[in-house]
């Protein structure tokens, strides 16, 4: 079987007969969370706690996703509060 360079994913997809369910689910979930978080940040800059209340998600998960979004360049870290405790996060425009 000849496979075209640059289109090998298709080959494996066909060979496996589809995409692993878990991977599909995980991607869907991440995209939803990403959208929710970015929408929330469109309105105002938020700390982890505020985000947690706003999108109803435990703070530790908020931190994980938010920091991942910082890593991917969607979000950036803002100022720290007066107590030097919590940072706010904002959209990276």
């Amino acid at each position, binding site marked *: 079987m000849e496979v075209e360079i640059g289109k090998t994913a*298709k080959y494996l997809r066909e060979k496996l007969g589809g995409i692993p369910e878990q991977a599909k689910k995980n991607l869907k979930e*991440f995209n939803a969370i990403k959208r929710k978080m970015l929408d929330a940040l469109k309105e105002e800059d938020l700390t982890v706690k505020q985000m947690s209340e706003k999108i109803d998600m435990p703070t530790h998960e908020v931190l994980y996703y938010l920091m991942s979004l910082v*890593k991917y360049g969607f979000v950036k870290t803002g100022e720290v509060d007066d107590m030097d*405790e919590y940072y706010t996060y904002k959209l990276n425009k």
Partner: protein
Amino acid sequence: MEKESSIPNGTNSNSPLGVGDSNPIKNITYDALVIGAGIAGGEVALNLANTGYKVLLLDKELSVGGKMIMLSKVFPTLDCAACITTPKVSEISRHPNITIFTGSEVSNIKKLSDNEFTAKVTKHPRYVRVEDCTACQLCEKACPVNVRDQYQFGLIGRKAAFIPFSICSPKAAAIDIDNCTLCGACEKVCPTNCIDFTQETEIMNLHVKTVVVATGFDTFDAKKMPRYGYGQYKNVITALQMERELAPTRPFNTILRPGDGKVPDKIAYVLCVGSRDASVGNPICSQICCMYSIKQAQLLMGALPMADVTIYYINIRSFGKGFEEFYQQAKGMGVNFVKGKIGRISEKESGNLILRYEDINEGKLQEAEHDMVILSTGVLPNTGIEKFFESQTLTLDPFNFVGQSDALASPAKTSIEGVFVAGTATGPMDIPDSILSAGAASSEAISYLINQQN
């Protein structure tokens, strides 16, 4: 990077798109096989290569450098670990006598005669042709998937097409096939067309004259001590996770507690988590936890000048060269040392943690509140290596580390003549001791090789 194609007696297995050819099992031959490309295995490979022997250096991870390359700074000199490992790693990967197989495993090791070992090498596909990858990260950018990054101990996410970490070697992307949605986005953006989903697991027959086991160590799984709440209380983390938070390539770019992103200011270290503890099956001392905790405490005091750091200990084991001075220095910097093992940790609604301990100096039960707790988890053997030896038994010690047949006079010798052991595969040790142990294994292996030639 040309390494992968310089395999003697073999064709380049990664040749693209040769789909359909049923891969015949290749034979490959080297002088020495070094299992594990951590700091000990790397040192052995270098020593052997520098004296002219051809070495196959093999690691199951995607990068060489083992645990050390993941660390922040190292005690007692506070050199950054990367500054020490990266040049070594670079030397290893450039060396004409060393061939590196990452993402690979070895099994069925048989001793046929005195200078003749065979083994089966399994090379898992990376789905990236390493020699073509420029580590441009465009695939990483294009990949839509987000999963927990194992190289950051789950503190942050990464893509399914990813570069393991910034100083990894080989520095090339890899595809996490379990989490990949096979959307092909990475392929579309790759400027060198190095992504190749047609790659398959390769099996090779290896012939070598000597084997060095440098499989390193594992750390204690803190979840086995529910009374410390690891996994349940999000602000209880392990020292390796803190190591990442402190490292130059840190996930949060500052120190944050993972529970809610607060900058911690009362930090506690719990020593002897899973070491010196027969009740969890590991009665021996891990030898490094005191020192790495003291080191992290010093780094934390530097990163967060207002923070309080307390280390709860049974005995401080600062026994090595410059260690005691390093411990005294930490005391001088204001790190609190409290003698008493932590009995239980409970969580408050704020995410802060209550630590229960007996302050041995006072003989009194005490409770202390901290906003972040680091469990200094102990060193455990990386089990299973003995199962890969077939014709003769690789004997283990009572703690399941690789046994030393003549521990005092020839510490690198194992129960099988011609198989040597280096670094933490024999038991807990720090970096200098691992390197010395690797030096010893190299010496024995070179002598063995010379002896067989004569």
